[in-house]
């Protein structure tokens, strides 16, 4: 082989490639970690679907402001009010058309809700309305009432998750979503890419992005590389290890990492042991090393922007000496502190997950625990994390992440802390009561009740080992202007992308 030939070939490749990479103006390419199985509006709460669908193809009645502090903003509803203790009335925007040309009215909202609730398909959105009896009633084409039992003070927030589809949409999963949003799904080549095209008859302001192409790379390093080479413009979730260039932006991603304690099994049923677990971990040591700079030590399962987040709750200090003392005390009372405790982590849960759990294991063992670490795949993790728990199990800590960017703890508290909660490791009457009260309360009372609950869980029950509010990293190419937010995990509004 002649060197000159190789060189010539390489040069040729360079020129051809740079042409191939070049993107047309108005187009963006987004590289996501996982291809959605469906582009189904009623599944938009699933992050891989939501990033594409939510507010791009399908819109909701209300929308939570994650960039400013406006709280809940109107989207397809222009306003809403409570007509009585159990009824919410929504006034709908007029002159809105679906991408199939039909007009948007109250009937569509009712159908969307019924469809999401239907037992013929497993829509993911419906889980947010579980345990509440909600009846939508069409008042006139642009007014709809929702009657709830019990009273649902945060119904407008819940409706920020309900994607609106036309009333003609059949009750089965669709691959051709129709919505009121500024974009339509123009092309889907499974496994390769999904393309959204801007539509002209959108009711609101036309966004800058004309065409958005989504591609999928499960390896974050590759995703990051694609933005560096100009093959893609935005990689919303890259690994912290790769976030080394000035194209990379860190953002709090609303994920909270914690160790769920199964406090029904000795020695974890002893509060001193749970406290020892908490003070046995040097949380600060992780930040800026294994975990990215900007990661916050958590004192609650929800991020600080959540309603009722309690600033008075202070993180546990790192004090391995004290941890050992606590264990000794417990031991003296006959608590089997030497028992091997299984720490279950999920591989690939977040960048550096394995290292994080390894470090935790090593810190806890230094503090006198006998921890065995086991990293498992998602299905097995689910077995440990969710009820029903296995009978005859040993003491188990489950390392997990929880994501609630919706602004209200109601989306977390029941599942994670109620005696009946699916991932709850505790059974505490006071906790159950507080959750019930707060869920039904409104306004400042609601906030106060949540605050009380946060403090009680952290300081009195010591329900779990709260670790970190995580940050995510996005790589944004030089062509586009985009700032990720706390909601970037679950949605990616193309209208928020500009060009430089």
């Amino acid at each position, binding site marked *: 082989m002649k060197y000159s030939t190789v060189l010539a070939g*390489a040069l040729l*490749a360079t020129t051809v*490639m740079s042409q*191939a990479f070049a993107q047309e103006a108005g187009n963006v390419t987004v590289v996501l970690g996982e291809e959605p199985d469906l582009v189904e509006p009623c599944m938009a709460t699933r992050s891989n679907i939501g990033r594409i669908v939510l507010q791009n193809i399908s819109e909701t009645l209300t929308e939570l402001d994650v960039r400013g502090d406006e709280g809940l903003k109107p989207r397809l509803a222009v306003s809403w009010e409570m007509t009585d203790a159990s009824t919410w009335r929504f006034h709908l925007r007029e002159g809105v058309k679906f991408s199939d040309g039909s007009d948007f009215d109250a009937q569509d909202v009712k159908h969307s809700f019924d469809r999401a609730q239907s037992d013929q398909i497993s829509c993911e959105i419906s889980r947010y309305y579980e345990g509440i009896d909600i009846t939508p009633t069409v008042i006139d084409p642009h007014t709809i009432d929702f009657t709830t039992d019990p009273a649902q003070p945060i119904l407008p927030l819940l409706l920020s998750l309900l994607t609106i589809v036309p009333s003609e949409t059949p009750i089965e999963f669709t*691959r051709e979503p129709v919505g009121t949003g500024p974009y339509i799904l123009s092309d889907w080549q499974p*496994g*390769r890419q999904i393309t959204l095209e801007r539509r002209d008859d959108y009711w609101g302001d036309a966004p800058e992005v004309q065409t958005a192409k989504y591609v999928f790379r*499960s*390896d974050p390093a590759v995703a990051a590389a694609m933005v560096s080479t100009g093959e893609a413009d935005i990689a919303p979730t890259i690994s912290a290890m790769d976030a080394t260039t000035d194209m990379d932006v860190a953002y709090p991603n609303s994920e909270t990492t914690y160790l769920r304690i199964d406090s029904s099994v000795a020695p974890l049923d002893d509060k001193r042991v749970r406290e020892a677990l908490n003070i046995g971990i040097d949380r600060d040591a992780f930040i800026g090393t294994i975990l990215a700079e900007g990661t916050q030590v958590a004192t609650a399962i929800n991020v600080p922007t959540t309603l009722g987040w309690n600033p008075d709750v202070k993180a546990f200090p790192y004090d391995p000496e004290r941890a050992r003392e606590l264990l000794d005390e417990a031991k003296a009372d006959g608590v089997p502190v030497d028992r091997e405790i299984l720490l279950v982590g999920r591989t690939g849960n977040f960048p550096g997950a394995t290292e994080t759990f390894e470090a935790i294991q090593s810190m806890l063992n230094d503090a006198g625990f006998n921890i065995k670490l086991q990293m498992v795949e998602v299905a097995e993790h689910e077995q440990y994390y969710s009820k029903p728990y296995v009978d005859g199990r040993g003491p188990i800590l489950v390392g997990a992440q929880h994501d609630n960017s919706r602004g209200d703890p109601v989306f977390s508290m029941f599942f994670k802390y109620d005696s009946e909660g699916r*991932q709850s490791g505790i059974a505490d009457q006071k906790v159950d009561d507080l959750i019930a009260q707060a869920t039904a309360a409104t306004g400042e009372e609601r906030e106060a009740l949540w605050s009380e609950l946060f403090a009680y869980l952290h300081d009195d029950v010591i329900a779990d080992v709260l670790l970190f509010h995580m940050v995510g990293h996005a790589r944004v190419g030089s062509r586009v202007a985009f700032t990720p937010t706390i909601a970037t995990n679950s949605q990616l509004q193309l209208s928020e992308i500009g060009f430089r």
Partner: protein
Amino acid sequence: MKSMLGKRAVSSFVSLLVLIVLVFFLSRLTGDPAALYLPIDASEAMRENFREINGLNDPVLVQFGHYLSDLVRLDFGDSLRKARPAIDVVLEAFVWTLWLALITMVLVTVAAIVVGALAAFNVGRGFDRVASVFSLIGASAPDFWVAIVGIVLFSVTLGWLPTSGTGTIWHWILPVAVLFIRPFGLILQIVRGSMINALGSAYVKTARAKGVKNRPIIFVHTLRNAMLPVITVIGDQAAALLNGAVVVETIFGFPGVGKLMIDSILQRDFNVILAAIMVTALAIFVMNIVIDIAYALLDPRIRT
């Protein structure tokens, strides 16, 4: 040949049936798809509903009966996740795998034969040693490692090739190159050994006594004989590629059947797993026939 083909078809069919039974029942022992499909805080009622809709509540034997009766009507069932016929999902992905396997194997075969034959002709000399060492190093490096280094080097640093994905011909270079390395090293070794043997054959002496030139002796007289043991190995390697190149597909975002298979396995999307196994098994069956034909074409002794 025909009766052999018939026998082969029957025995392959039996194997496939056993395989389907095994996969069907064993995979259902690996946990509840509802737990994976639905969000972790979904209620038991939702899960129950999901199982009901997808027929996961029936006794496994009943499920199997349904599956088989659908199967004889060529209905492979729907994907749990994608709400589409499983066979569509699989075929879509399989086309990519097929191309990837085909291109890779053609290149590997040509390259391994040329380099292997030349190495055999130059046994023990520089070319032979260099070829052996490089093929060995390449073949013993973990492929995901090679893939990432390849991307960092050729895409990010040098900017010659796209990092990943599909689209242009350039997108195929890195994945094919990574897939190329291991079978190349293996087949090269086989070609080399087989060629060394064949070059020592009596008919080579005859050819030399006839006054035939060196090149036809290597590439006409010897190579065709030396190819016989090589073909088996080529077949094995091609079969492995047809089963999907999980690692390469995962890294390069290549929509092949390997990635589909691992995703379906991790998500317990049973119908897709079964459809994928059947499609790849059929492909491998067809490929084995091609190999047999190639054998017969190369060696007249097998034809009779």
